[in-house]
């Protein structure tokens, strides 16, 4: 991932060859530091917190948000926002539930029971479709991303409610004689002791990371998020990139929806309500810029873990749900605040001392001060 950090051009002057400096470590490490603090504090407060079993349980909670956040990161890197992922998650669960109950084809007089893999593929296609609508609205019809995806948030949620009449599908197990069992595998099974959801998140994160760092599409994404006009004049198909990004986000939401409904063994139309905000928070805590062009998968995942481990920790030590909300909000604001403070200091306080950077602070300052002088001077 050294490539990504270079792309973000946050690294100090000594890091151009992909090495690392303390400045970079601290900057990227802030969210990680917060995660360690959270683990240490809750381990002291509760004897149940620090155990492999609990970590895996918490990780499987994180997985839902982590998957959503990876999709959200792609959108945010592009300079957009996707508010519809929570609703897409909900609709995906409902569609999965609907398909698991069997599809009645009245004209033919038969009931189709698609196997689980078909259900998964169809649901992912649904997510891509929602993303396609978002992307076309935003890229071609020039609707602001916030408004387009806000609209889809309502439309998709409404569709889920209409399909179920507000009720919940409880029977997702399938029947062996129909050949559609195995849906619970996603939510309940473990591979080498690790919940499947966590593994799915890891796979999605690795794929996302490869896309961002090693493919032309990833480079296009960073470029068009950093400066769309410059990217377009350099031959980047900015509109296609934009549409693709929302489709990928939609697919991530569908995958998260499948895992969640499998975990809950039920698919309700209100599942995933306000999850989009948690996903955005994870991306922001992970250091991505909402203006686009800066951010990476590693940070986003750490951000998702910070939120997940914090809220589960609060549950374990018995803090009321209302206070949990307050704490989570405070952490989000604090994370962004720290970014702002550090950035401001690096710009405003040039150090008068000479020589190569001996402290991370100084290295950062020298870098930010120099261009300002070189570029504007004269």
């Amino acid at each position, binding site marked *: 991932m050294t*490539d990504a950090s*270079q*792309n*973000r*051009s946050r*690294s100090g*002057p000594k*890091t*151009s*060859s*992909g090495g690392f400096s303390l400045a970079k470590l601290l900057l990227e490490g802030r969210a990680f530091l917060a995660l360690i603090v959270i683990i240490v504090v809750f381990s002291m407060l509760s004897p149940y917190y620090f155990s492999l079993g609990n970590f895996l349980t918490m990780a499987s909670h994180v997985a839902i948000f982590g998957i959503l956040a990876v999709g959200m990161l792609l959108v945010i890197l592009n300079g957009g926002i996707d508010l519809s992922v929570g609703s897409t998650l909900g609709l995906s669960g409902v569609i999965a539930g609907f398909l698991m109950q069997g599809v009645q084809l009245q004209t033919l007089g038969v009931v189709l029971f698609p196997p689980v893999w078909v259900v998964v593929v169809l649901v992912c296609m649904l997510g891509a479709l929602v993303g396609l609508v978002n992307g076309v609205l935003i890229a071609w019809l020039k609707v602001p991303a916030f408004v387009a995806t806000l609209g889809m948030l309502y439309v998709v949620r409404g569709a889920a409610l209409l399909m179920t009449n507000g009720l919940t599908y409880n029977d997702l197990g399938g029947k062996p004689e129909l050949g559609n069992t195995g849906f619970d595998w996603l939510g309940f099974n473990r591979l080498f002791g690790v919940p499947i959801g966590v593994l799915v998140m890891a796979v999605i994160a690795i794929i996302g990371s*490869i896309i961002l760092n*090693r*493919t*032309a599409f990833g*480079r*296009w994404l*960073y*470029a068009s*998020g*950093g*400066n769309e*006009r*410059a*990217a*377009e*004049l*350099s*031959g*980047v*198909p900015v509109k296609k990139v934009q549409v693709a990004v929302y489709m990928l986000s939609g697919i991530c939401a569908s995958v998260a929806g499948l895992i969640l409904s499998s975990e809950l063994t039920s698919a309700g139309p209100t599942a995933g309500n306000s999850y989009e905000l948690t996903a955005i928070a994870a991306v922001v805590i992970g250091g991505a*810029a909402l203006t*686009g*062009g*800066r951010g990476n998968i590693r940070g986003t995942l750490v951000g998702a873990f910070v939120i997940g481990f914090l809220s589960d920790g609060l549950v374990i030590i018995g803090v009321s749900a209302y206070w949990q909300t307050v704490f989570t909000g405070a952490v989000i604001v604090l994370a962004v605040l720290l970014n702002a403070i550090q950035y401001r200091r690096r710009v405003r306080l*040039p*150090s*008068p*001392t*000479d*020589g*190569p*950077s001996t402290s991370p602070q*100084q290295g950062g*300052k*020298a*870098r930010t*001060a*120099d*261009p*300002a*002088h*070189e*570029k*504007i*001077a*004269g």
Partner: protein
Amino acid sequence: MNAAPQFEPAAADTVLAARNIVKSYGGTHALKGVNFDIRRGEVTTLFGENGAGKSTLMKILSGVETPTSGSIELDGHPVAFSSTVDARNRGISIIHQELSLAPNLSVRDNIFMGRELHGRTGIDFAEEARQTRMLMADLEEDIDPMTLVQDLRLGQQQIVEIARALSVDSRILIMDEPTSALSATEVEVLFRVIRDLTARGVSIVYISHHLEEALQITDHAVVLRDGTITATAKAKNIDLEWIVRNMVGENFDLGSPPTGYAFGEVALSIEDVSIADSSGSDRLVVDRLSLDVRAGEIVCIYGLMGAGRTELLECVAGRLPVTGGRVLLEGDDISRLSIAERISRGLVLVPEDRQRDGLVQTMSVGTNLSLASIGSFVTGMFLSRSRERSLIEGSIRDVRVKTAGGGAPIGSLSGGNQQKVVIGKMLTTNPKVMLLDEPSRGIDVGAKAEVFRLLAERAARGLAVVFSTSEVAECLGIAHRIIVMRRGRISAVFGADVTKEQIMAASGEAVVASS
């Protein structure tokens, strides 16, 4: 010529004197002990290349930055400015090089931003509008106070910026590149305003890359090089060559058209192209214009602001649609192709505003350089890092970018080197036709010469080059053919042996613009 640089002692008419100013950023010394005087009612021009420290010095004098050491005396008393507001209250204001207007607000609101006039019932908008109209009348610019800044041309925006500085009654007015987007007529008006101001006792500090222009208006010339003042003189004792010699320390010119080879086939053919005004009026910004450019030929398009140069180049590159006519690349109609398709066929544009359209500020020097040619280092699905690295390193060598390496942030480069990155990015696609819109805007003389030398080299190897400029001197450098545009049409075509006067007459600069 008796122009020996000499340091005159602070005279009685010195309003502001900066003494031994040192400014360091980390280990970099931007200013190394500078003495600088501003005289009452006179224009002092600061000459120097990018990075010489001109803007840093002006920022210190206007309270944007504080010096590392040294002192400033205002009317003989030592002062320290805590902020720009502090400096403004003491009568010093600055017109920044980069426009600092809010595009979503009206001209009136921009001019009075932060110091609104209060009446009995809140802000006195009528009075503000009246004063705005007076300022615009002074600047001979027909801009309604209620026009949104975003609807103005760049040149008009610069006028608004100037008007804002004028609206504060300053004793010292610092102008950092005030004319970079102005047409010759607008510059004339600005100069008249400057003369009015100096007659009233206002002192002006002037910074410009247009040396000739600055020489016209200034009383004193001060040359800054590498953070040190290398020469000062009265303007009447010096000429252009003296300034350039002291700025770069050597004699220098913008080159001559490359010769010794025959032009190839027609590479780019513009046939009867018309482009509609983007603001929706039925005026054509480019009106049935035709132009053929051969491989190896360098064509310069000269014209005033609003002549349609930018629109023509952006249309050929695919950013704007043609309203009529067609564009042919090596005989194939490319009028309907996307920008990406035109690039892959060998037609590229280096845009006018490199910050807005040329560079991705969040990426490194290397990834900016490789952005337009990603396809050339993709293996299967993945980018080949080694091939990308060699492409980037080759490009850095090729266009001579001064950078710590491909991983350096793009913002760490000077304006001239950033421009070389934009040009280098496009050259790595191996284009057949390269369009450059004002390639020398905001870069220093040295970098300008390097850019033109690079274009001349490439032309000799068969690249067709079309560049636009608003500086007459640049037409007379490397161009084989000079096209003068006026109101969307070609008003004259010259060979390399044309004179400045002929070009300016054809562009309409000699007469007062009627529109």
